[in-house]
């Protein structure tokens, strides 16, 4: 028994020390693989997720200086734009959560839904069409608040190139010209035939 307990204790310590929690995301994204070994930025980053069904989701953090509460400020700006009112509590709740994808008028209901299962129903994607380009607004407001944030695009292998291209166009309209395409590492090497 004692050796087993020892082993367990060891394993437990190992896992506790090496753990970095997997962030919960609004949609499951199966990223394509590449040989790139550059680690995807983790902090101070705007992540745009493109799901299998071409729905677009957004995640951004509070920036390098978390006391600035960028998420809160951005949501305030969005509220102004769409004539919405958020209470302080709702703003605070929003600033602690991660990715989301819904039209702006659904945000309030989403924030006030306590059950995470029920919350998933709201994730229908952020509208990106030219008549109601909410993603553009989000990106613009985030860029105004946090101009140095990196931009990562996390697309599903099966997402359409058209959607990703559209997202890139929106980003470029906001003067983002450098993207990180999130991928899995898969080693591959070419050899010259002599």
């Amino acid at each position, binding site marked *: *028994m004692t050796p087993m307990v020892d082993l367990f*204790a060891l*394993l437990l310590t190992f896992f506790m020390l090496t753990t970095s*929690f997997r962030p919960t995301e609004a949609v499951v994204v199966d990223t394509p*693989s590449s040989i790139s070994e550059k680690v995807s930025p983790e902090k101070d980053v705007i992540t745009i997720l493109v799901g299998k069904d071409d729905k677009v989701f957004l995640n951004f953090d509070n920036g390098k200086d978390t006391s600035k509460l960028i998420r809160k400020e951005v949501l305030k700006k969005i509220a102004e734009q769409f004539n919405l009112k958020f209470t302080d509590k709702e703003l605070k709740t929003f600033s602690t959560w991660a990715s989301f994808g819904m039209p702006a008028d659904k945000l309030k209901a989403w924030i006030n839904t306590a059950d995470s299962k029920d919350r998933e129903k709201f994730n229908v994607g952020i509208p990106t069409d030219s008549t109601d380009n909410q993603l553009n607004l989000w990106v613009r407001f985030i860029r105004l608040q946090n101009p140095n944030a990196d931009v990562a695009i996390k697309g599903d292998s099966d997402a359409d190139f058209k959607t990703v291209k559209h997202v890139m166009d929106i980003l470029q309209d906001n003067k983002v*010209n450098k993207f990180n*395409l999130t991928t899995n590492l898969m080693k591959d090497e070419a050899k010259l035939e002599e």
Partner: protein
Amino acid sequence: MAEIIQAEGKQKGGKKKAKKFSTHIDMTPMVDLMCLLITFFMLTTAFSKPKAMEITMPEKDDNTVKEAPKIAADRTINILVSGNDKIYYYFGVADPKLPLPQLVSTNYSKDGIRKMLLQRNKLVFKAVYELKQKVTKGEEVLSDTALTRRIKELKKTVDPKAPIILIKADEKAKYKNLVDIIDEMAICTVANYAVVDISDLEKQMIAGTAVSAPAK
């Protein structure tokens, strides 16, 4: 929780035994808890950190008159990415006023697009490969940043006729296809490549309905 089992000393025949206490502690609940915690940490841990490939797109500026940058046609390889994992390439330019270049259909495998790229990019690939070999063998000691800088230099200087790749994807292409082809550029150490918009003529070429050189 610990339960101390007290062994009761039986007194027999007037012999007096010192009372013995068993020092065993029941560890089962602790082990249970540890098991639970290990399982929890194992399931929530994200071991492989997500990687990212960086691409930089040419700046969009709607105010200036757009003029396509002039690049040598003999260095240009156009890669057309389409749906169903289909991929085509042609050399030079597709101009409605000129006879159409020949469109070659290929695939993402080792003998497909990579073979062609390697052949065209032989000099650069060889130079970079040799440098990397030297570093792994320890003949040359370079830090990671120095190595990247050296590779960048090699890409610029080794072959003045190194190919320029234009990647064009149509609406049917999947995101995976784009990542795959950009990845292929990295594998073949192609120095110059760009993701650009596909033209109508090229779409017709894929569909096989393109008409060349309208006779006057």
